[in-house]
């Protein structure tokens, strides 16, 4: 058994998942002939803990690796290096049989309600697939359980024999949630679950996720680029930038007193739905997001950082504990 070092955070809660030095790289496939010329450093040496019952949000802009991280932790993608323990089992070392058993415990809810349901399957079969796969249920038991699940997520149970295209985006997302919850998992990765939805539907789904978390004591890894939703929904937040975690801590503290310059500018960039805030001088980050194929030397953020020093260009900062948070910056904004 490995000795796993505890990472900062609330010691009262039980750790559900420990992520240690995880790296996920992909070869770049170029053109028709797949010349493997370079690697995408999608997730590059990431460590953190997830506590039971919490919502840990991972935020970041496109290409920061947040979705890859979520999929790696579910072993939908293979990690290049590192360890991830789910209740002391290293997920990356499980055999495919053990993994299949573990899948009952950890599930995922997807972003696109149109792509995440098989268009050729009836809703009963979509929600019932996990049951059929893992539990020897007869048809009647399965139908009963599916009806129950549909009711839980706010769908009329008589619609079980309809196909996904007969539902709206919000309803499809509910179907996806019912499917993910069918086996009573402990841990659910929510990959941008409300990003594709309209504002008025978005709040319905957020409420549903929150209700289910309270009823079923779920632990969420909530992946999102929407800083408004994350602030409302998460307990703790990890800010990712080009494959690395820049800052990790309790949500409200991170929003109100960011320690990493990137966090500060990211939070400031989100448009605030209040015209009175206009008068405030807006902090704007210049430049482009660097490519994860060839990340900048030193601190990955140094090309955009307004507070950059020489040291940032050559020496990569480690994720250190500062004021009860983890920050990867040589010159945090204390």
């Amino acid at each position, binding site marked *: 058994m490995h000795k796993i070092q505890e990472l900062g955070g609330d010691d009262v809660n039980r750790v559900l998942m420990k992520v240690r030095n995880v790296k996920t790289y992909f070869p770049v496939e170029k053109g028709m002939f797949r010349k493997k010329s370079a690697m995408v450093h999608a997730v590059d040496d990431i460590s953190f803990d997830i506590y039971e019952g919490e919502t840990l949000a991972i935020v970041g*802009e496109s290409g920061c690796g947040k979705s890859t991280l979520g999929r790696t932790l579910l072993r939908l993608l293979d990690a290049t290096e590192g360890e991830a323990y789910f209740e002391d089992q290293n997920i990356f070392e499980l055999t495919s049989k053990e993994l299949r058993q573990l899948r009952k415990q950890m599930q995922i809810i997807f972003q696109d309600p149109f792509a995440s349901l098989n268009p050729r399957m009836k809703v009963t079969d979509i929600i019932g697939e996990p049951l059929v796969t893992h539990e020897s249920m007869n048809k009647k038991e399965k139908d009963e359980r599916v009806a129950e699940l549909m009711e839980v997520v706010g769908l009329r149970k008589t619609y079980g024999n309809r196909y996904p295209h007969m539902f709206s985006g919000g309803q499809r997302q509910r179907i996806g949630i019912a499917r993910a919850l069918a086996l009573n998992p402990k841990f659910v990765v929510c990959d941008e679950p409300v990003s594709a939805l309209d504002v*008025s539907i978005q709040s319905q789904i957020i409420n549903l996720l*929150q209700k289910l978390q309270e009823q079923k004591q779920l632990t969420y890894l909530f992946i999102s680029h929407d800083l408004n939703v994350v602030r409302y929904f998460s307990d703790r937040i990890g800010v990712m930038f080009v494959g690395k975690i820049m800052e990790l801590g309790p949500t409200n503290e991170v929003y109100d007193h960011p320690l990493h310059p990137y966090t500060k500018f990211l939070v400031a960039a989100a*448009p605030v*739905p209040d015209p*009175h805030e206009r008068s405030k001088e807006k902090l704007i980050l210049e430049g482009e997001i660097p490519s994860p194929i060839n990340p900048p030397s030193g601190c990955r953020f140094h090309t955009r950082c307004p507070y950059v020093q020489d040291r940032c260009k050559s020496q990569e900062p480690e994720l250190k504990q500062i004021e009860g948070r983890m920050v990867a910056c040589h010159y945090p904004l204390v």
Partner: protein
Amino acid sequence: MNDASTILEINNLKTYFYTDKGVVPAVDDISIKVKKGQIIGIVGESGCGKSMTSLSIMQLIAPPGKIAGGEILFQNKNLVGISKAEMRSLRGNELSMIFQEPMTSLNPVYPVGKQVAETLLLHNKHMKKAEAKQKVIEMFKMVGIPEPEERYRVFPHQLSGGLRQRVMIAMALICRSKLLIADEPTTALDVTIEAQILKLMKNLQEEIDTSIIMITHNLGIVAEMCDYVYVMYAGKIMEQADVYELFDHPKHPYTEGLLKSIPRSNVQQNKEKGLYSIKGMVPNMLNLPKGCRFHPRCIYAEDACREVEPDLVDVGEGHLVRCIKYKN
């Protein structure tokens, strides 16, 4: 009514889609006014008709869609029924547009500089190519594209989303258009890039003195950018007001619901009660509910709401509401 400061005036515009399954009133009798130098916001959820409004102004509605009525007065000239040649001379010149998807809105097989120069050459018949190129490079500088000379020659797939949107903006403003229609210009972009583009648009608007119609679903963008706002729902304008008035005193239950249901990044919110949410979903445009379109989702709905469609009522100071609760 038509004072000189009004650049665009839409009166009772109807854009209908004649599909196999029936007529879809995508834009159903809307009136909008844009003054010189103003930034107008049109907000609404998907399918509310906000994009169709913009395409109607550009006269780019494709069959089975058709402008079924109303007038679009651009600098006092009605664009509905105008000759194709006349419309072409306005497009890209005095009236221009940027789109949601910078990834697909540029032609993949031509260098971006050439695509911007094309707009310039189309509207300035005697301009030399070298001169056009010079102007494009100047414009690239203005919209903050680094190394503009090199970027003139690159193809769209070699640029990031943010840079492509800057190219689109350069293309739209190269002829110093009087009115820029921006249809969800930052929806496909990352937050930090979105902030850059919004700031750029605001700066350019002041510099070039153009008017902007900002079409978006994001109330944050409206609050940051717009002077006056129209809220659309199922093809109709539900409420219109000055931006401060709208956010401080929303009158329509839909606007009120929208504002309450968005989580905010700048304040800590109480999670215990849950987020406010509007029940139900957007109605079917082929089979709209009788009476007020919003009544099936409205918590205040009364019997009268199910019968009569309310008018847009002026409640003072340019604030108009389409709700039975308000009368002249």
